[in-house]
């Protein structure tokens, strides 16, 4: 909302010491944020209005014109470069321009002096709007007409109401009363009540608007929907002459962001900007049956609005109609058929109160956010209509002539009363933590124009209908806080009254585990990134595989296709980030993300899980130049997953446990359905030891995907679910005091036999002295190892917690393990 400082000064007596900046600063800390202050025409001195008496081309320049201007005393030739120099007509009726004579100064700081332009001396210049500090417009010079009411020779700044300041206010949705100059003036009067700001009185005498002509009939209003439109007030004006408004008003509208159209329409807009209440002028002659019907639209009823669009309405839309058709979408926008035009002589001036709930759904559905709908949907003052309508009628008469040709029609079946709220001063203390005396509270509310009386210790506050936001005691407490000044509130800390049994909030285990996963990944040398939760359907397909039944959750109103669904996996986005980072010239990239994924659940809310995922590319940490043995491989990503999993409190088993075991996981080969982004020969799945469900996959990126991303070398990735259960906290086990003994075990076995099966079988051999098995070698060199076989070397550790083992005991235990393994797999022991 833009506010003119000069206009405020027409409403208020503001002591000269209070500058627009001072007032803006106070408004800002009192609930009315001032986003900007723009000077208008500041620094403009000495430019006058002059009449064009003649023009001819500059002899040496096609684009320059020599203009004869008359300042009331004499005619002077000025050189002008604008393309729109008007042609003179007869003296007194000729167009006028703004002439900055030598000695005049412009808002840019330039002081004019006579200057030769292509060989011809020009005493000053004719000005465009930007040069006058009115706007950014430099398309041509500003042209005035005699009808603008500015005499030749007059000082332009004074006539145009300059200088002025425009304050850009950010009005919160609860304060529709501040959407007009009067409301802002009311606020300033309250805030500066101790600094001598007072109201100027100005009342419209309607009687003077009636003129002496014959009386006509009152406008006929048929109010069929008093809930949507509780009050409809209309003036009828006759004998108006529609034309442009005088410059002063056109400029005022312009600087407040409203386009000047014609004197009648401009008058309604000026009244809107003054009172914050929208009005609409109809061409009375074009209203069929000379009547107004306020009703709901018929299904499918069509109306051409002022913006030239055809609108299809529905029965929930409130419509202003005449005897046969709709003429305006009530409170939103007028219709074209009854628009005021230059031929209009009789006007029906609508000043109605529309209920907020009847405006907003229509405005939203039609995507028509207008000055009118903005105010009606926030709430206007039903009891201020007559004042607003009278003032607007007075302005029409002033700008367009004419007179009120009948009594107004005021349909107001059920008067909306003011109401009274009780404020307990001690309640203010309890909310604010500041003991503002009751008398001071009363004074704050009265400063805002709210009548207050005392009843016992309580304050009874009468709420005028222009403050629809004040409906509860707390609303009054806020007003007291604002006007008293919230900087006066002290600072204390809330007393800590937490009970010891305060529960851990829902979802916190997953949240803590997610942070744990972040710390672990960072410790393992990965860099964290964060991506949007929204992604493209294509990326979801990449992550889920073509045959997956998983459907991502679609966003109804996405910003764009690439952000139109919620992600189901992190990895598709991460591989894209990998590509981008490599494109930036990085050689070794290791990124991870911990974030939410979203899956349809069949419940009201979708399932949200937290995943941890990473992509790896390039080499391990290497010294100086990397060698081929520094290149990352599958076992790097596996090693990271192993560390991450154990850091998350999950124990990694070599194979599926015989009994379901919570907080344990195991690995097997992943199918291409489970890991569509991974190389089928280097893809592993991580499974829950309790449910047997796949909770993650890891491996090498699929060559096809790699090719589509234009990656030259192998890339590796993992994506796991962050556990939802609390991290397993193992009890302390003291280290054994007795030494451990190692024995090697070396054998040939079928090359397809999985290491994990052998390790798992040994571990689960039931041998009580066996404490650990480590794979030391996987050897398959042709010539040394038979084709289809591999030679494996394990180291087995034996220990007792009760005694030092003898060689004999160790040997027997070792043999028992070998026998157990040999029963499960055909082994060929090596010597």
């Amino acid at each position, binding site marked *: 909302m833009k506010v003119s400082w000069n206009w405020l000064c027409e409403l208020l007596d503001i002591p000269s010491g209070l500058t627009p900046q001072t007032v803006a600063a106070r408004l800002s800390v009192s609930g009315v944020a001032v986003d900007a202050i723009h000077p208008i025409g500041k620094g403009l001195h000495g430019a006058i209005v002059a009449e064009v008496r003649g023009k001819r081309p500059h002899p040496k320049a096609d684009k320059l014109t020599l203009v004869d201007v008359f300042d009331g005393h004499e005619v002077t030739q000025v050189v002008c470069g604008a393309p729109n120099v008007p042609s003179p007509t007869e003296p007194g009726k000729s167009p006028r321009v703004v002439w900055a004579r030598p000695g005049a100064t412009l808002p840019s700081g330039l002081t004019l002096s006579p200057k030769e332009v292509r060989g011809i001396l020009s005493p000053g210049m004719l000005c465009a709007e930007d040069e006058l500090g009115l706007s950014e417009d430099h398309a041509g010079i500003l042209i005035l007409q005699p009808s603008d009411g500015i005499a030749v020779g007059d000082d332009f700044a004074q006539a145009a109401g300059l200088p002025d300041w425009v304050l850009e206010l950010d009005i919160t*949705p609860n304060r529709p009363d501040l959407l007009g100059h009067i409301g802002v003036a009311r606020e300033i009067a309250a805030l500066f009540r101790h600094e001598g700001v007072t109201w100027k009185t100005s009342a419209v005498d309607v009687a003077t608007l009636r003129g002496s002509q014959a009386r006509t009939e009152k406008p006929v209003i048929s109010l069929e929907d008093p809930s949507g439109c509780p009050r409809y007030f209309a003036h009828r004006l006759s004998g108006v002459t529609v034309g442009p408004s005088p410059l002063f008003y056109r400029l005022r509208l312009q600087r407040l962001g409203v386009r000047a159209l014609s004197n009648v329409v401009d008058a309604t807009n000026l009244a809107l900007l003054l009172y914050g209440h929208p009005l609409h002028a109809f061409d009375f002659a074009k209203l069929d049956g000379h009547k107004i019907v306020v009703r709901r639209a018929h299904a499918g009823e069509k109306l051409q609005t002022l913006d030239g669009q055809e609108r299809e309405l529905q029965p929930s839309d409130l419509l202003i109609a005449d005897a046969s058709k709709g003429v305006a979408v009530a409170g939103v926008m007028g219709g074209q058929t009854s628009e005021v035009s230059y031929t209009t002589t009789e006007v029906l001036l609508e000043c109605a109160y529309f209920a907020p709930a009847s405006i907003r759904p229509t405005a939203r559905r039609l995507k028509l956010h207008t000055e009118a709908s903005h105010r009606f949907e926030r709430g206007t003052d039903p009891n201020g209509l007559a004042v607003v309508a009278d003032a607007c009628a007075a302005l029409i008469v002033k700008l367009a002539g004419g007179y009120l040709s009948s009594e107004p029609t005021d349909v107001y079946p059920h008067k909306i009363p003011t109401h009274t709220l009780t404020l307990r001063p001690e309640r203010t203390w309890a909310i*604010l*933590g*500041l003991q503002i005396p009751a008398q001071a509270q009363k004074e704050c509310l009265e400063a805002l124009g709210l009548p207050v009386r005392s009843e016992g210790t309580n304050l009874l506050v009468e709420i005028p209908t222009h403050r629809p936001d004040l409906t509860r005691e707390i609303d009054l407490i806020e007003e007291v806080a604002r006007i008293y000044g919230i900087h006066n*509130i002290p600072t*204390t800390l809330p007393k800590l009254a*937490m009970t010891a049994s305060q529960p851990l909030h829902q979802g916190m285990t997953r949240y803590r585990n997610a942070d744990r996963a972040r710390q672990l990944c960072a410790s393992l040398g990965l*860099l964290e990134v964060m991506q949007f939760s929204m992604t493209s359907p294509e990326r979801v397909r990449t992550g889920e595989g073509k045959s997956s039944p998983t459907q991502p*959750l679609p966003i109804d109103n996405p*910003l764009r296709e690439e952000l139109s669904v919620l992600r189901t996996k992190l990895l598709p986005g991460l591989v894209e980030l990998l590509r981008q980072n490599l494109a930036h010239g990085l050689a070794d990239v290791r990124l991870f993300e911990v974030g939410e994924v979203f899956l349809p659940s069949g419940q009201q809310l979708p399932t949200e899980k937290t995943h941890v995922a990473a992509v790896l590319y390039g080499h391990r940490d290497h010294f100086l130049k990397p060698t081929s043995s520094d290149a990352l491989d599958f076992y790097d990503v596996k090693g990271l997953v192993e560390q991450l999993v154990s850091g998350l409190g999950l124990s990694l088993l070599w194979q599926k446990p015989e009994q379901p075991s919570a907080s344990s996981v195991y690995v097997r080969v992943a199918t291409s359905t489970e890991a569509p982004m991974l190389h089928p020969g280097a893809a592993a799945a991580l499974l829950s030891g309790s449910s047997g469900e796949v909770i993650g996959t890891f491996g090498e990126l699929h060559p096809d995907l790699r090719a589509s991303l234009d990656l030259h070398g192998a890339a590796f990735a993992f994506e796991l679910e962050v556990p939802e259960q609390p991290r397993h906290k193992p009890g302390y086990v003291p280290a054994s005091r007795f030494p451990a003994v190692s024995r090697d075990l070396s054998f040939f076995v079928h090359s397809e036999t999985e290491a994990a099966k052998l390790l798992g079988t040994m571990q689960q051999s039931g041998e009580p002295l066996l404490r650990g098995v480590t794979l030391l070698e996987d050897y398959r060199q042709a010539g040394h190892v038979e084709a289809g076989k591999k030679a494996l070397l394990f180291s087995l550790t034996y220990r007792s917690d009760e005694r030092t083992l003898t060689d004999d005991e160790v040997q027997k235990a070792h043999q028992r393990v070998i026998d157990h393994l040999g029963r499960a797999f055909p082994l060929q022991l090596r010597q």
Partner: protein
Amino acid sequence: MNQSDSHAGELARLFDESLSRYQAALAEAKDEPALRVVHARFVGKEGEIRKRLADALKAAPGPEKRAVGQAGNTVLQKAEELFAERLRELHELKRQAELAKKLDVTMPGRPHKLGGLHLLTQVRLELEGIFAELGFQVATGPQVETDFHNFEALAMPKDHPARDMQDTFYLRSAPGQDPLVLRTHTSPVQIRTMLAQKPPVRIISPGKVYRKDDDPTHSPMFQQIEGLCVDEGITMADLKGTLLYFVKRFFGADVGLRLRPSFFPFTEPSAEVDIECIFCKGSGCRTCKGSGYIEILGCGMVDPEVFRHVGYDSERYSGFAFGTGIERMAMLRYGINDLRLFFAGDARFTEQFR
């Protein structure tokens, strides 16, 4: 010269001869194992010197045995000393050789690269820590929310103009169901928490939120952190004190704040909070647009309407709530001017904040 003298002389000669060969052999030995071999050859159980001594003792008549033994012990002692001396010498040589090593210590080290947490994660953890000092527990909630939790219960009924303040992403929901939205703020966590427990409530809820906006200062996804404190006797002064504590802990002890009354549907009175500009110390600069203040968060006293929705008695309990953007905190702290950098996944950005 009698016979015994000649025996003794012969023995001494033998010992001397052994010792001199022993000494030469010790000098030949270049490391400890070789040295020990020499030692064993001469002085060990089967060693030459011991053998000669044993032979001499055997040959010596009874009365002379004692003298022979003494002479032998002297020789053995001498042999051990020579061994120990040579061992020390070898150790010293080895040490010297080791110390002769000289590296170019200015060469780059073998890298053990640090990973790193995203700057926003670091800032979030820091904020959680600050509020933990004041007794605020972390609480979280779903990011896909019902219209009820995101709007209705926060005093923003359908078709309320305040909904214009937040451009909302809607999800497709089944007909007749409460519409689903990507939460526009973390405030629904307040509702879920209050619906689940009675006062006292003191929570801080960080998390991702979504608005239909995309430019250098608006991202369709960003993170908020919100606080809620409800109990008997909670005042706006407590709110101010809590915020002041936070501002001084996060931005510095010399940074002050001011509250400006504002409007949020779910708090009343409501305020925007400004801190003194940390770039110009309040004298006015481009970042603060000359005002000397920077807006950092919104806050207020919980609106009675919100309490009504969660079944709290607003006459008995009062409370405050506040919320800010984690990105905004990070941008101010680290002088980052484009919000989109946080979500671009550029390692060169992330690496700077390890």
